[in-house]
């Protein structure tokens, strides 16, 4: 399957929960090894309020330029992560979660992308 099948799909628990705004992968191994280790699908980031691309604002703490960041943070309030194990079915345009699924915070503290260094 391709990613676009998942992005934007509506996510259901017992009721509609929102739409998939991102898909999280986890590297099986150290990313400083070459070549890149395999990447396993870890979970889906679901946003209850908007389908639009988040511009990355809600996953980090960037707060400027002020009006745009505020808008984005507001649009993506209450985003959460669900893990692969909690996904019961992937249908066209619709993803069904298992009963009793867990909502995790979507916040990313440290990703596999190295901190860029600047001269």
């Amino acid at each position: 399957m391709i990613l676009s099948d998942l992005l934007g799909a509506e996510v259901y628990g017992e009721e509609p929960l929102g739409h998939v705004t991102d898909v999280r992968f986890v590297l099986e191994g150290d990313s400083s090894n070459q070549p890149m280790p395999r990447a396993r699908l870890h979970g889906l980031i679901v946003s209850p309020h908007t389908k639009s691309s988040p511009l990355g604002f809600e996953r980090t703490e960037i707060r400027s330029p002020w009006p745009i960041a505020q808008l984005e943070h507001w649009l993506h309030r209450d985003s959460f992560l669900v893990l692969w194990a909690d996904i019961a079915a992937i249908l066209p345009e619709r993803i069904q979660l298992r009963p009793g699924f867990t909502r995790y915070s979507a916040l990313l503290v440290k990703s596999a992308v190295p901190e860029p260094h600047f001269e």
Partner: protein
Amino acid sequence: MKRRHMLDPEAATGRVLDAQLHLLDRQVHDVASVPVTAVSDLEISDVDSIQNIPPGTPAPQLIALLSGPVLGTRIFGGRPPPSRLQRIAWSDVDEVGVVIRLAVKGETLDATWAERWVRDHIIGRIPGGRHDPE
């Protein structure tokens, strides 16, 4: 009021890649830092009985970066047939940073066929095309 959910166990391990944030629409450079393409989509391994996933099914893997015509379908909807997907295998990726660097030369990839075609049939035929600018 903002509910504080439990932190993702992988949130701080330095092993996470978010598709939209880190991979999609990133520029791809080859091993010599020559631009190859931009990532338009990702190919993920298929899962048996995806419409009714048994508990304990292993998670799918990221197989390839996709570019080319898939950009149109990503924006406007639909899906190109698998034979028309321009793939860059995930195993050819060397590192993911501000750009995605490959471990191979661009020449060897499907994704550069258009560039090679234009080079060989048009630009290469105009005098001066192969020289450095003066």
